[in-house]
């Protein structure tokens, strides 16, 4: 099947050509439509090609080598099950984002800074997934970083964005160097950079451990694992919203792909203890990410933090898969891996949807600060519905898709008693508790988002005058919302599609689900556990309909409008509503001290004093304070110290030269 890989590479070439075309089109008014139109079409083609590969019964891999890149190995590309799955994620996200961009892009103030890089970014992500040698992989990886950096810098005049871009690219480069070292270890002294060669070699256990550590640094920094996540809540919100959606929904998944590709595909047998590290980091990431999200006021930053949480969930699941694989429990490993991949897909769906929604709100009101929004459910009827679907899905509640994948993760956790190692036995339930905590907090977080932004009464003039957004944006969001719903109702079909992927990585897939009665999801055995999203949905819908039907037919259906109860106060101003911050306050009191060193200060005037009372809350970013701030200080200190060398006298410089000479001569004299 060289055809489909050729087709995919062709798509990438067209995307790159589109990027160049975008430079050429410049300020032309049609540029936005042309570029996004082309990217949408190309993504659709690539999506079909990838889906064909994924659902193809033969599951044959195809490879292609182009005479580009490193001269003696060329640029190798390979389309297998894993890359096909991630291509689906990438191109689905890309296609929908393009569709959204068709409408959203017309509001762009500086299209010249977005249009050339958008197709390039898509091309970069596609290339990463297709790459089959270390050079092509890193090339595409870094190209993806660079083009997304340019997109982050699109609105460079807004305060903070330049810093966001800076931190982003430095962290990306850090990640790339870590990956480079990992590949260097894997390739060995002979420079076998083709993945085919890496796969063929039996790696030492030390190498495997080091590679895992480096991959956690490399892929983890791109995916946003704590404590390497600092760039993410800065960079994702800075980009235009459809790009934020791509970065959060898709690019972090490409990082996950990198991790899976190297750890599951290239390295071979993992160490069991390494899975503890992965799981623990994943669990910590999930909890810390969602807690940070809860404390946020900026809707896009909140969504970015929530991405960190979901990445944590995915890594917990990957860690489980590693633990099972190390102990030869293939079916359980397949379950955990499938859960991770399913969550990858789901997160791409709902996080893109939510970012689109945030973009729509931004278009309609110009606001990202949730405390200045409210009541949009009346002004933006369609957006409010699809956004609700997104919130519901990301909160891991049945019957939507977020629950289906988290349920699979929990099922995988429940397989852990069979693991022989004591460390794992003790670790896994604790991680499970962390995941449950994260899931519950996620629900709280998205109640806060939806409640503050769409419900209640508008808190600013901009929110009062909001208008529903254009049809392209709505179409993009509706597609994703229906995908959330479909994946939630038919999880079995998704699991079946993922089965060959798991099979190619851990040597086993989950049992076929499509034949099970009522399309239930039964990962291991029916006596152990099963779940049927379709039936749950049907039952709830039916019961609700029954209730409505009976009550409306046999009881009352009269409605009267009246003012809300305000404790007897004459007029309730919009400021008297519960705000997002106050919503999060109880949770802040529970976890804030630990996670943010939160500190509340109340300035209460003495009785009789007419001064307003003030409540000041200070929160610290402990990750930044304890890791990055010392690094920054260290670099500054060293730079400042060394900088003195710029201002020496010529005589002193000569002294240095002299000293170097004498030292070398001394070495020679002593050595000889």
């Amino acid at each position, binding site marked *: 099947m060289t055809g489909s890989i050729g087709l995919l590479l062709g798509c990438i070439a067209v995307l790159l050509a589109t990027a160049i075309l975008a430079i050429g089109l410049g300020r032309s008014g049609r540029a936005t439509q042309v570029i996004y139109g082309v990217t949408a079409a190309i993504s659709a083609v690539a999506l079909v090609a990838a889906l064909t590969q994924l659902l193809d019964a033969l599951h044959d891999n195809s490879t292609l080598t182009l005479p580009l890149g490193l001269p003696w190995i060329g640029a190798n590309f390979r389309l297998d099950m894993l890359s096909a799955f991630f291509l689906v994620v990438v191109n689905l996200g890309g296609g929908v984002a393009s569709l959204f961009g068709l409408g959203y892009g017309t509001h762009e103030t500086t299209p010249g800074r977005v249009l050339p890089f958008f197709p390039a970014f898509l091309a970069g992500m596609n290339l990463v997934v297709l790459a089959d040698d270390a050079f092509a992989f890193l090339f595409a990886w870094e190209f993806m970083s660079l083009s997304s950096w340019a997109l982050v810098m699109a609105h460079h005049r807004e305060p903070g964005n330049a810093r966001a871009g800076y931190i982003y690219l430095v962290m990306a480069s850090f990640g790339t160097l870590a990956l480079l070292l990992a590949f260097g270890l894997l390739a060995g002294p002979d420079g076998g950079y083709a993945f085919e060669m890496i796969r063929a070699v039996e790696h030492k256990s030390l190498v495997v451990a080091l590679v895992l550590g480096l991959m956690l640094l490399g892929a983890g920094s791109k995916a946003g694992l704590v404590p390497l996540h600092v760039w993410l809540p800065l960079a994702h919100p800075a980009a235009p919203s459809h790009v934020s959606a791509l970065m959060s929904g898709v690019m972090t998944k490409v990082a996950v792909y990198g991790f899976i590709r190297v750890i599951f595909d290239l390295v071979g047998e993992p160490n069991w203890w390494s899975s503890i590290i992965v799981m623990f980091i994943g669990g910590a990431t999930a909890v810390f990410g969602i807690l940070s999200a809860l404390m946020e006021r900026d809707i896009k930053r909140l969504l970015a933090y929530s991405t960190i949480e979901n990445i944590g969930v995915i890594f917990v699941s990957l860690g489980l898969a590693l633990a099972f694989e190390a102990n030869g429990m293939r079916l359980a490993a397949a379950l955990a891996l499938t859960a991770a991949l399913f969550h990858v897909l789901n997160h791409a769906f709902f996080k893109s949807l939510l970012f689109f929604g945030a973009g729509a709100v931004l278009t309609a009101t110009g606001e990202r600060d949730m405390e200045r929004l409210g009541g949009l*459910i009346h002004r933006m009827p369609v957006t409010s519905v699809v956004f609700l679907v997104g919130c519901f899905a990301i*909160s891991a509640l049945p019957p939507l898709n977020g629950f289906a994948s988290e349920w699979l993760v929990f099922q995988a956790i429940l397989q852990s008693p069979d693991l022989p190692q004591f460390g794992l036995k003790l670790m896994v339930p604790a991680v499970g508790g962390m995941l449950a905590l994260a899931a519950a907090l996620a629900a709280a977080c998205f109640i806060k988002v939806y*409640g503050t932004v769409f419900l209640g009464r508008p808190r600013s003039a901009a929110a009062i005058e909001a208008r529903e957004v254009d049809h392209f944006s709505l179409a993009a969001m509706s597609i994703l919302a229906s995908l959330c719903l479909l994946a939630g109702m038919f999880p079995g079909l998704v699991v079946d599609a993922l089965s060959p992927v798991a099979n190619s990585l851990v040597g086993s897939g989950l049992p076929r689900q499509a034949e099970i009665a009522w399309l239930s999801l039964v990962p291991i055995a029916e006596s152990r556990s099963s779940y*049927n999203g379709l039936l749950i949905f049907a039952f709830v819908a039916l019961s609700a309909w029954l209730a409505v039907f009976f009550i409306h037919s046999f009881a009352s259906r009269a409605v009267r409008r009246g003012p*809300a109860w305000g404790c007897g106060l004459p007029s309730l101003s919009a400021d008297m509503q519960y705000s997002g911050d106050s919503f*999060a306050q109880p949770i802040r009191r529970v976890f804030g001290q630990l996670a943010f060193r939160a500190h509340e200060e109340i300035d209460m005037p003495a009785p009789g004093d007419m001064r307003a009372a003030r409540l000041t809350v200070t929160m610290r970013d402990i990750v930044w304070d304890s890791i990055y701030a010392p690094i920054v200080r260290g670099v500054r200190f060293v730079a400042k110290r060394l900088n003195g060398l710029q201002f020496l006298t010529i005589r002193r410089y000569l002294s240095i030269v002299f000293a170097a000479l004498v030292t070398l001569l001394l070495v020679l004299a002593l050595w000889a």
Partner: protein
Amino acid sequence: MILDILVQGLQMAAVLLLAPLLTGLVRKLKARLQRRQGASVLQPYRDLVRLLRKEVVLAENASWLFRAAPYLIFAATWVAAALVPTFATGLYFTWSADLIAITALVGSARFFLSLAGMDAGTSFGGIGASREAMIASLAEPAMLLIVFSLALIAGSTQLSTVATVMASPDVGLRVSLGMALVALIMVAIAENARVPIDNPATHLELTMVHEAMVLEYSGRHLAMIEFAAALKLLLYVSLIACVFVPWGLAQPGSGALAHILGFTAYLAKLLVGGALLAVFETATAKMRVFRVPAFLGAALMLGLLGTLLLFVSRSL
């Protein structure tokens, strides 16, 4: 198959009918314990009927979500309650959700309830929703750890299987089971907004959680929400009964007699559960809102300890 569906339908109808009764029972017993006469145990039914007949007064700002939420909350809770084995195991649709899914389904109902609380744009709804979110964020992990403990013992998260295993003699008495039971009761109290977490009978704004959220509701909407609350209480009592006192449950394929026996046993369990709850509520005082995390934290720790102890006992 028809019969199976019939039994399943029976279960659905049973929980619907029994839920207000359980609430009435608890209220009556509490009143008696407080040396009051108290309303009849059937009072909740009358309340519901009266509320259903009344017209709805909507806040000026309320959206469609506010109107749809009560039905969704009711439906989700009803489905969840119907999926817990009450008088028989292995019902026809029982496999469509395991214990995790049932817990999550209750979470779905809570999601809508919290949103509805925030819709009117008053501070009461917000207060209630935010406190509910805080409580849930601790109760849900505790619940999940309890599920882990049970699943480790029974090898399944499917309630029917769990009940069957629990009923079998080889489970025996275990420390972790006790811990799970205590933790589950604590979670149940929190989830159902009972004393000492919340007081279902109060309308003092500083202490309300659940009632604050539903303050704007009236008429048939309020009826739906009250009904859902009653169903939820029933759900948790049934859950505790089915897992920790699984005796008397009719096995799949057993005859009508077994089912009748099961149903009687179930009624008895409800009675005992309701009585214990009433006694407990009368004997305890409501705690400050910010003591709640400590309470639920204890449940969480118990759950975790139970799980870990299981590993210890297994590997020894």
